[in-house]
């Protein structure tokens, strides 16, 4: 009897699961039959579809305090209205949390619910999905419709459109959004503290070290009863980024394209020669009490460190070239002024010189920033391309970046655009709305002179002179990345996240090691990192570089 019941339950299980299989395969087949790119130009009349099309577009949700709904505000309305009028395409935005974008997009792709237009900073993610057949090849589409996409062509150019083109297979899985300016990282320091202690802005690594030592030694004078909260030089999660200028200063200025490329899978330069030296310095500073002891306890997206900067406990740090000026009234700079006092502010300094005595900075080219791709569930590739074209039109970029006069910007006497802190629906969730201008990262007003003139004024609530200094330093001694055209590196497949996490462990543990243990911790960390797949990547990169460029160590 008992057996019979068990048998019945099992049979019922199977029956039910068959039903479930059946239904899931239905939805599966729908998504695979979507390669309907063959519908020709005839669909378009004067760039407009006869029938209204519907596309979904990814937008980052940065979750900022007092921001607007990223899928529904003044700017999304502008885009929706424009696309409907110009191309008869309905646009719907899908928000994805900025700090967990990779995971989120993975889930959306795996469940077949990804937006028609996706963007990510991670090319390996796109490559992995492309290998599974989850991404549309843009090459044939661009061949067919390219001539109509004048704005896109004018703005991105072949460099960015075909940056990721596979020379051998002829496939193009993504196009690269353009970095409107390639400034990358700056070092910032509390100007008022330097003044108080009678110190000059540092010009060399040694002077920088002396400054942060002076901050530490004079904590009582600078912070009073909060002296124990002082962090002279703050480095937190993602050490490779937050100490990038120190690391780059230890690299060989004469590094060849080949060596740079072979060690280039990790953009935090973990295996580049010189990184160990830099980390040794940082480790020494940590053990001398110059760094933040709790740095490892907070992860990406945590605002504790920002709050410490706003409250005025942090003496110096390295970050995005405009970091303390970002987000208007809520920027670090504005908060500092409010909380600490009128004269409290960060200024950019340029002091990490390399063996040639130059403050060389490794910056990206116009590409290598956000990548835009269409998942295979995209039924409207043409409408999606038209969207990219529309969003790349200079006048649309300009409006999205500066908004309305008197609301989000003023025009100054010399014609420069000055951004002002907006309220309500006009608040931009990202600086200059870069989350909407997906083909453009950084201010671009259509006229280069005007853009340059306006850049210093594009940070509301911040002194343009401070911004100008940061702009200038970040543009000094830049070394621009080159595009190495080799086929897909198979060993990189799916390794991005695992190796990235491992890299952070190596950086963090080495940074926090006891000074006498540093070599041991660093070497065993690197050994583990290499054994976990990095060595295989480097070997394959070497092989493919040599296959493409022969004995030459340069890509030119």
């Amino acid at each position, binding site marked *: 009897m008992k057996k019979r019941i068990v048998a019945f339950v099992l049979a019922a299980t199977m029956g*039910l699961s068959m039903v479930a299989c059946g239904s899931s395969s239905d939805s599966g087949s729908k998504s695979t039959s979507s390669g309907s790119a063959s519908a020709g130009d005839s669909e378009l009349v004067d760039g407009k579809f006869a029938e209204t099309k519907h596309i979904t577009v990814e937008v980052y949700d940065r979750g900022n305090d007092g921001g607007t709904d990223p899928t529904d505000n003044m700017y999304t309305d502008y885009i929706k209205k424009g696309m409907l009028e110009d191309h008869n395409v309905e646009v719907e935005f899908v928000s994805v949390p900025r700090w967990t974008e990779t995971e989120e997009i*993975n889930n959306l792709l795996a469940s077949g619910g990804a937006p028609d237009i996706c963007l990510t900073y991670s090319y390996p993610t796109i490559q992995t999905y492309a290998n599974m*057949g989850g991404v549309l090849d843009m090459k044939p589409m661009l061949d067919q419709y390219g001539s109509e996409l004048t704005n896109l062509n004018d703005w991105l150019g072949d460099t960015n459109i075909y940056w990721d083109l596979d020379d051998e297979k002829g496939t193009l899985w993504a196009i690269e959004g353009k970095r409107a300016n390639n400034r990358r990282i700056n070092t910032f320091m509390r100007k008022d503290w330097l003044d108080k202690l009678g110190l000059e802005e540092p010009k060399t690594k040694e002077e920088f070290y002396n400054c942060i030592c002076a901050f530490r030694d004079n904590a009582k004078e600078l912070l009073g009863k909060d002296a124990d909260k002082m962090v002279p030089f703050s480095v937190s999660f993602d050490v490779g980024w937050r100490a990038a200028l120190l690391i780059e200063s230890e690299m060989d200025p004469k590094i060849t394209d080949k060596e740079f490329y072979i060690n280039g899978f990790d953009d935090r330069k973990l295996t580049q020669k010189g990184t160990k030296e830099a980390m040794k310095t940082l480790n020494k500073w940590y053990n001398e009490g110059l760094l933040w002891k709790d740095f490892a306890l907070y992860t990406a997206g945590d605002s504790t460190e920002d709050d410490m900067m706003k409250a005025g406990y942090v003496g110096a740090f390295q970050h995005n070239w405009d970091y303390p000026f970002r987000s208007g009234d809520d920027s670090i700079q504005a908060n500092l002024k409010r909380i600490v006092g009128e004269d409290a502010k960060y200024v950019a300094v340029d002091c990490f010189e390399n063996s040639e005595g130059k403050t060389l900075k490794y910056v990206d080219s116009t590409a290598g920033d956000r990548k835009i791709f269409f998942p295979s569930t995209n039924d409207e590739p043409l409408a999606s391309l038209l969207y990219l074209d529309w969003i790349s039109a200079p006048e649309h970029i300009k409006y999205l970046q500066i908004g309305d006069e008197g609301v989000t910007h003023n025009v100054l006497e010399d014609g420069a655009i000055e951004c002002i802190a907006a309220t309500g629906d006009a608040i931009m969730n990202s600086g200059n709305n870069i989350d909407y201008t997906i083909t453009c990262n950084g201010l671009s007003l259509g006229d280069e002179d005007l853009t340059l003139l306006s850049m210093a004024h594009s940070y509301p609530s911040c002194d343009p002179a401070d911004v100008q200094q940061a702009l200038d330093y970040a543009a000094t001694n830049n070394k621009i990345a080159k595009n190495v055209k080799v086929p897909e590196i198979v060993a990189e497949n799916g390794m991005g996240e695992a190796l990235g996490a491992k890299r952070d462990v190596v950086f963090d543990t080495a940074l926090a090691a006891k000074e006498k243990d540093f070599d041991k911790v660093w070497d065993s960390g690197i050994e583990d990192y290499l054994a976990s797949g990095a060595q295989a990547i480097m070997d394959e990169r070497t092989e493919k570089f040599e296959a493409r460029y022969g004995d030459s160590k340069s890509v030119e």
Partner: protein
Amino acid sequence: MKVIAAGNSAVAVAEKTNWKAYLKRYWQLYLLLLLPMVYLLVFKYVPMKYVLIAFKKYSIVQKVGEMPWADNHGFQYFIQAFHNRDFLNALRNTISLNLLDLVIGFPIPIIFALILNELNIKWFKKSIQTIAYMPHFLSWVIIYGLAIQLFAPSNGLVNMFITKLGGETVPFLNDPGKWVGTYIFLGIWQSFGWNSIIYLAAIAGISPELYEAASVDGAGRFRKMWHITLPGIKGTIVVLLIMALGNILGSAFDRPFALQNNLVMQNAEVISTFVYKNGIKGLQFSLTTAVGLFQSVVGVFFLLFANWLSRRLGERGIW
């Protein structure tokens, strides 16, 4: 689990009588049972089909049936997992953290229940109990927030106290060894009150006559505890121990994930966080499904073994 157990015992009785008549008489109860059964089928059994991913080359656009088989007769990803240093490390950590949890964490709710049971002032007992099980309702993210406030090296309350007394800061959260202690401590703190409820219920079910008889015979508190209370809840203890053993390779995700940081990763990476990082973030779905399957299979063996052992020792198992 309990639903099935209840169902089984009902079935056993039904065998003796005419089961059709039985069904007719108690159809409402069976109807009630139907809902959890459907839940189990839909959410626990149907998804099992996707276990196949462990033996196939995963693709987001293909159906499970269409995906090509993995190399080495489908075992490519199992081989890969056991060559993966991070997986082996995660496996080691999972076992050692769970064992520590078991050895240290398992007896505490029992002891707590025994102590609570001896309290005579009702309101005091009730409030202690409530306070003790409250942390169960906190999410691990919040507990980590509390832990940082208390244990952070530079401005955690405990460390400030220690330094004020002239001591050195203790790296509770950022030294791999100390972290394990903190992890176990927080786990116990969060769950001992809640876990003691089931023992308290079992204790409440012991006949008061036994205690009265023992008192007449002159037994003191500890005698009664040892000879009446503990044997009275032995069955409950064994069942919970079996369940705990079945979970020795299992790992909750939120606790290690919320508590871990880069400095302690060598001890803090467990299978669930490994799967999250490599599978969901790193897109290696086949590899991580293989790991998950391995984890479950070993868990089942542990469960069966513990159950067999408890039956051999003369206790009731879980079925």
